[in-house]
C-alpha cells in the first residue's frame, strides 16, 4: 500500500498537466457559478426565479394530477374551467357571508379581549382571579367546541360566530398581556415625572406603547378566525365558502373543491392585509 501511495505521489509530467487543465476548468466552472449566483441577486434574476417558482408549482400540480389513482385530482385547467362557470352572484354571497361571520366574531373578540388583556396585564387581582381560567380554557382547540356550541346556541349561525370569536379571543388576550408587560418602565416614570394624570398616562403613554403587540395579536387572530369559520361551515353546512367547498365534495364536483380552497385562501389573505393596513395607519411610528 505504501508503495502505491508513493507511486501516486511522484510527479508524472502528463498527470501534472492533466491536473492543471482540470483545475483550470474547475476554476472557470466556479467563475461561471459565481456569475450565476450574482445574476440571481439582480432584480431580473429575482423576478425570473420567482416566476419559475410559481410555474414550477403549476407543473408539479399537473404531474401529480396526471398520475393514475382511484380518484383523479383535477388539473389546473379543470379548476379554472370550474371557476369560470361558477354561479357568480351566489359565490359572492357565500364570500360575503363568511367574511361577515369572521368579521363579527373578530370584532367581539377584540372588544372583549383587549380590555381583558389590559386588566390581566395591569391589575394584580385580575391576573390572579381571571388569568388561571383563561389559561385552563386555552389548550382546548376551538373546534372541539362545535358540538357544545350546536347544543347551546339556538341557531347554527350563532355557533359559527362563537367559533370565530373563540378562535380570535386567545391570541388577542395573550398579545395584549405581553404588550402591557413590555411597556418600558422608563416611559411610565417619564410620564409621571412630567405630571401626567392616571388617565393621560394610560391613553398617551401605555396605550401607544402596547399597540404594536395588540396588532400582532389581531393579525394572528384574524387568521385563526378564518380557520374557524371554515370548520364551522363545513360541519354545519350553512353557506359560506367553507360550506360551498364541502358541498362540492359531497356532490363530487371535485374541481369546485379547489376553487373553494382558493377562495378561502384569497379571502383570508385579504382580511389579513386589511388588519395589516389598519396597523400601518394606527401605528405609523412602527415599521409593520
Amino acid at each position, binding site marked *: 500500500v505504501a508503495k502505491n501511495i508513493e507511486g501516486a505521489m511522484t510527479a508524472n509530467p502528463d498527470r501534472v498537466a492533466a491536473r492543471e487543465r482540470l483545475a483550470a476548468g474547475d476554476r472557470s466552472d466556479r467563475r461561471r457559478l459565481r456569475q450565476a449566483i450574482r445574476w440571481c441577486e439582480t432584480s431580473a434574476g429575482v423576478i425570473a426565479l420567482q416566476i419559475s417558482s410559481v410555474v414550477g408549482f403549476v407543473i408539479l400540480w399537473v404531474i401529480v394530477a396526471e398520475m393514475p389513482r382511484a380518484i383523479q385530482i383535477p388539473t389546473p385547467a379543470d379548476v379554472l374551467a370550474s371557476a369560470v362557470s361558477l354561479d357568480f352572484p351566489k359565490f359572492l354571497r357565500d364570500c360575503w357571508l363568511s367574511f361577515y361571520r369572521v368579521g363579527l366574531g373578530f370584532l367581539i373578540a377584540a372588544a372583549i379581549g383587549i380590555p381583558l388583556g389590559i386588566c390581566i396585564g*395591569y391589575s394584580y387581582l385580575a391576573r390572579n382571579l381571571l388569568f*388561571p381560567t383563561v389559561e385552563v380554557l386555552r389548550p*382546548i*382547540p376551538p373546534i372541539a367546541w362545535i358540538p357544545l356550541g350546536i347544543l*347551546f346556541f339556538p341557531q347554527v349561525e350563532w355557533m359559527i360566530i362563537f367559533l370565530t370569536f373563540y378562535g380570535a379571543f386567545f391570541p388577542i388576550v395573550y398579545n395584549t398581556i405581553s404588550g402591557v*408587560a413590555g411597556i418600558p418602565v422608563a416611559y411610565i416614570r417619564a410620564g409621571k415625572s412630567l405630571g401626567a394624570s392616571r388617565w393621560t398616562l394610560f391613553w398617551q403613554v401605555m396605550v401607544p406603547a402596547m399597540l404594536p403587540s395588540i396588532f400582532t395579536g389581531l393579525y394572528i387572530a384574524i*387568521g385563526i378566525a378564518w380557520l374557524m369559520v371554515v370548520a364551522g361551515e363545513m360541519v354545519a353546512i350553512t353557506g359560506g365558502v367553507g360550506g360551498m367547498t*364541502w358541498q362540492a*365534495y359531497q356532490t363530487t364536483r371535485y374541481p369546485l373543491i379547489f376553487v373553494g380552497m382558493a377562495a378561502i385562501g384569497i379571502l383570508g389573505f385579504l382580511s389579513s392585509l386589511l388588519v395589516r393596513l389598519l396597523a400601518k395607519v394606527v401605528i405609523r411610528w412602527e415599521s409593520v
Partner: protein
Amino acid sequence: MKIGGRKSNLALQLLSLVLFVAIWQALVHFRAYRFGYIPSVPEVLRAGEAYLFSEQFVSDAIASTTRILAAWGTSALIGIPLGLMIGWKRAFSNLTFPMVELLRPIPPIAWIPAGILFFPNTESGVIFICFVGSFFPIVLNTINGVQQIDQTYFRAAHCLGASERRVFYDVVVRGAMPSVIVGLAVGMGINWMALVAAEMIAGQHGLGYMIWQSYSLAQYPLIIVGMVVIGCIGAGMSAGIRFLGRKLVPWQKT
C-alpha cells in the same frame, strides 16, 4: 418597578378555577338562558370516570397522539431544513418562497375534502391535514429565525475562515434554534386544531371523532370529557416542547 407587580397569589388562582366551575354548575342548575342544554359538573365527572378507565380511552388517545406525532414530525423534518435554506440563501428563497406563500393562506381545514378524497386511506388523509397545519408555522418561524441572526456573526465566521458547512451548522442552525422551537410549539397547537376538525369530519377513531360521536349519540357529558382530555394532552405536549427547547437552547431565556 414592574407594571402591576410580579406577585402571584396561589389562593386567588385556585379561587379563580373554583369560581369558574361553580358558575358553570350554577348556570346549568338554574337553567339560565339555554344552559339547561349543557351537561352539569357531576354528570361530566361521572362520564369522565367511566371513560378514563375504559379501553376506548386508551385506543382513542393512542390513535390521536400517533397522528399528531406523525404529522408534526414530518412537517418538522421538511419544514426546518426548508426554512433554514430559505432564510440563508437569497436565490433559494426566491425560487421556493413564492410557492410557500401561494399555499400558506389556505387554512389546513380547507384541505379536509381534498385530503380525504385524494389520499388512499383516511389515516394518511388526516395526517396530511395536520401536516399542512404545522408546516407553515414551522417554516415561517425558521425563516424568521435565520433572518434575525446578527450579520456580524456571519462576517466573523467568514473572517475566521469558516467553510460554508461550518457557517451553516455553527451560525445558521444555532442562531435560528430559538425561533425554530417557537415554530414547533405553535405548529403543535395548530396541529391539534386541525386534528380535531379532521377527525370530527372524517376520522373513524380518535378523540375528535369521539367528541362528535358522543354528540350524535346524545351522550353530552362525554363531549366535555373529550374536550378536557384533548386540552390536557395538547397542553402536555406544548409543555414538553418548551421543556425540550430549554434543554436545546440553554443560552436563551424563555
